[in-house]
């Protein structure tokens, strides 16, 4: 009886998590989580304390969520060095096929970091087994530090 109650509560919690209007997944830099992976491929990124340095672009990560979440807002807090973020895109087919959206709305934060939010529509993208691969495109930056420093990446999925 008690076990059935615990199981039912567990099922309700899982269902509630998946039926919310929005899901917000924050990347744990350097670690894979079930809903959002780390940045890769590994030779192009380096973990440096609480932040991650992109040494070479493009880099990728994957988000997994049920198919009824149609929009992904990717928010990146970063500091440009010799590289800067130029676009964010989603995979549209097998292999290297990405629809990259150039970034335009860069916001300067009070603590010197920059924030960019890009909205990707999930419907036109390639979503095998509910996973969406997202690419960060880089270009030359104006800074002196090697690469590009990332503080956080958040994917907000909306229905």
């Amino acid at each position, binding site marked *: 009886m008690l076990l059935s109650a615990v*199981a039912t509560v567990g099922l309700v919690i899982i269902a509630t998590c998946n039926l919310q209007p929005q899901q917000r997944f924050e990347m744990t830099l350097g670690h894979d989580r079930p809903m959002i992976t780390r940045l890769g491929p590994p030779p192009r990124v380096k973990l440096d304390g609480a932040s991650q340095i992109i040494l070479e672009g493009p880099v990728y990560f994957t988000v*997994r969520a049920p198919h009824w979440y149609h929009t992904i807002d990717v928010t990146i807090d970063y500091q440009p060095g010799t590289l800067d973020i130029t676009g964010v895109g989603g995979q549209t087919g097998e292999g290297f096929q990405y629809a990259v959206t150039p970034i335009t709305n860069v916001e300067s934060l009070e603590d010197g970091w920059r924030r960019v939010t890009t909205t990707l529509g999930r419907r036109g993208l390639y979503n095998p087994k509910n*996973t969406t691969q997202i690419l960060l495109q880089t270009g030359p930056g104006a800074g002196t530090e090697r690469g590009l420093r990332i503080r956080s990446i958040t994917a907000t999925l909306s229905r």
Partner: protein
Amino acid sequence: MHLIVMIHALFRVIWYVSASLFFLLVLVEYLEPGFVVNWFHPAWLLLIGIPSGIISLHKSPTI
């Protein structure tokens, strides 16, 4: 009922509940990838259920 017989019965219930829940969650995960595994991995149920099942297979001592 003797305590040890009750414990055997409890382990049997744990086995049935966790195994049936495991198959239910695997089915849901197959139909909608990420629905379950994003929040809870069903393998934990087997980790609890299999030892309970093995214990409950042993003949309950009748005292």
